């Protein structure tokens, strides 16, 4: 397993946002965590990426226990993420945004930086090439010198993905990547996510849009009120009475079950 959580919990005062969640994400493929609004998806993501600390439970990544590892060290270990509300560095150029994603890979010494030694120059050239490749992946290669804040909404979302991909992560975490997108943009995003997975990066995404996830994912984990209520292939999730109930409510689920032939 590339990423595994066991009995992971996060309490906010009286509220249990994430309740003893077991998650097992194998190496490779596209995996989704879905659930109605307020199910604890984003909190789970923050626990995985290190922006929140768990109240109980464990997280392991690539065979290493990372429960207590700070977020920056998790990024260095090969985990990258995007945010539900766009968080590009608005006044920096598109290229600089992508280069920030390579931060963990750059390690020039201060004297080398100040004197512009060949080692530093080579590393910087190499980083720019990688950043450009990440921009090309999402189709922003022609906007490299634009200020990130001047990009259209959909382009800013794609820039976040490029920034996360620049460092060549093993695991890419996408927090509601399709939020606010129209059907055409969603289709393009699905193609992009498939391309990323085809390159060998494991993708874990959080969504509450079921149709978007169903056609895309290899496996689905469903959360409701912080609990895991289903884990398995997307086709089975659609048939699962618990999942149906979580999405459309108990009464409607019973009515639907009665109508079934």
């Amino acid at each position: 397993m590339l990423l595994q959580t066991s009995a992971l919990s996060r309490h906010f005062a009286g509220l249990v946002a994430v309740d003893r969640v077991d998650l097992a994400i194998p190496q490779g493929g596209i995996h989704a965590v879905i659930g109605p609004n307020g199910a604890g998806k984003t909190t789970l993501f923050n626990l995985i990426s290190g922006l929140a600390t768990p109240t109980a439970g464990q997280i392991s990544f690539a065979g290493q226990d990372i429960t207590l590892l700070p977020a920056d060290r998790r990024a260095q270990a090969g985990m990258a993420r995007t945010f539900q509300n766009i968080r590009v560095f608005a006044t920096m150029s598109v290229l600089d945004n992508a280069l920030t994603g390579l931060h963990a890979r750059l390690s020039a010494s201060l004297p080398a930086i100040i004197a512009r030694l060949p080692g530093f120059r080579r590393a910087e050239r190499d980083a720019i090439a990688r950043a450009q490749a990440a921009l090309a992946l999402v189709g922003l290669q022609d906007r490299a010198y634009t200020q990130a804040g001047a990009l259209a909404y959909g382009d800013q979302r794609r820039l976040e993905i490029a920034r996360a991909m620049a460092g060549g992560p093993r695991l890419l975490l996408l927090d509601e990547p399709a939020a606010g997108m129209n059907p055409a943009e969603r289709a393009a995003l699905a193609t992009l996510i498939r391309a990323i997975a085809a390159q060998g990066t494991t993708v874990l995404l959080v969504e509450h849009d079921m149709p978007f996830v169903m056609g895309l994912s290899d496996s689905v984990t469903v959360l409701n009120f912080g609990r895991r209520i289903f884990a398995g292939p997307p086709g089975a999730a659609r048939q699962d009475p618990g999942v149906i109930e979580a999405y459309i409510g108990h009464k409607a689920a019973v009515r639907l079950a009665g109508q079934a032939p």
Partner: protein
Amino acid sequence: MAWFDDLLFTYQNLAVALGVNGLLALSMYVVLAVGQLSLGQAAFMGLGAYSSALMSLQLGWPFWAVLPLSCVVPVLFALAVGGPTLRLNGVYLAIATIGLGEVLRGVYLNVDVLGGAMGLSGIPEAAPLWLIYAMLALAVLVLWQVGKSGIGRAMEAMRLDETAALSMGVNIRRYRLATLCASAVLAGLAGALSAHSTDFIGPNDFGFEPAVTILSFALLGGIGSPFAPVLGAWLLTLLPEVLRPLADVRLVMNGAVIVVAVLFLPRGLLAWRMPRHVRPGRAA
């Protein structure tokens, strides 16, 4: 030729002040560049000034040995203060660092060997003017080179969005502590150079007022490049001299200039940002 000596003396002081204030503005710039608001620059300057003065007066050490050591002392304080206070954000760090300045002022006032309220005088005027400007030029060069590198990118990223920078692998705590130490080095250098060109230092030279003045250098100039805060420092150092004929309303004018600059030039007088990459095909 008494008038000429007079003139030279006046401008000598001004020339020293321009150089020293330039260094102080850079010391402020380094902290603001990572989005931290510290008001400890005057305190760090005081540590550099007092420690260098003591090394010269009490131990009789040569200036070339005193100068580097007087940068080490404020760094030790920055490390001691930085550990617990760098968890603080925004105005809380500012308050904590004002506290450092006030505590140190109390120490200078009450410890006999530090001269008390009378301060320390008779400090050898061992800092040549060229050295002050050489240090300023060196500081600008280093900050320029670092600012254009991946370190500068990470600093800007964390100023714009700390959470996103953290998720990109930027070690926020380490960057905060490192920039506070760099800031302490620059302020300590400014303190030692100024103490060794003006012969006298007193506890009130490093209190709250100079702390705010140093902040206003960077506010006026901007933080788009290392040149901007130096420009701000030079203008605010020259302004009182230029406005001298205005006598009593001089400080009012001085304040008005800062207010107008903050209102109408929120990114500082020199909003130009140092370019990190030039579009290929354009003249580089």
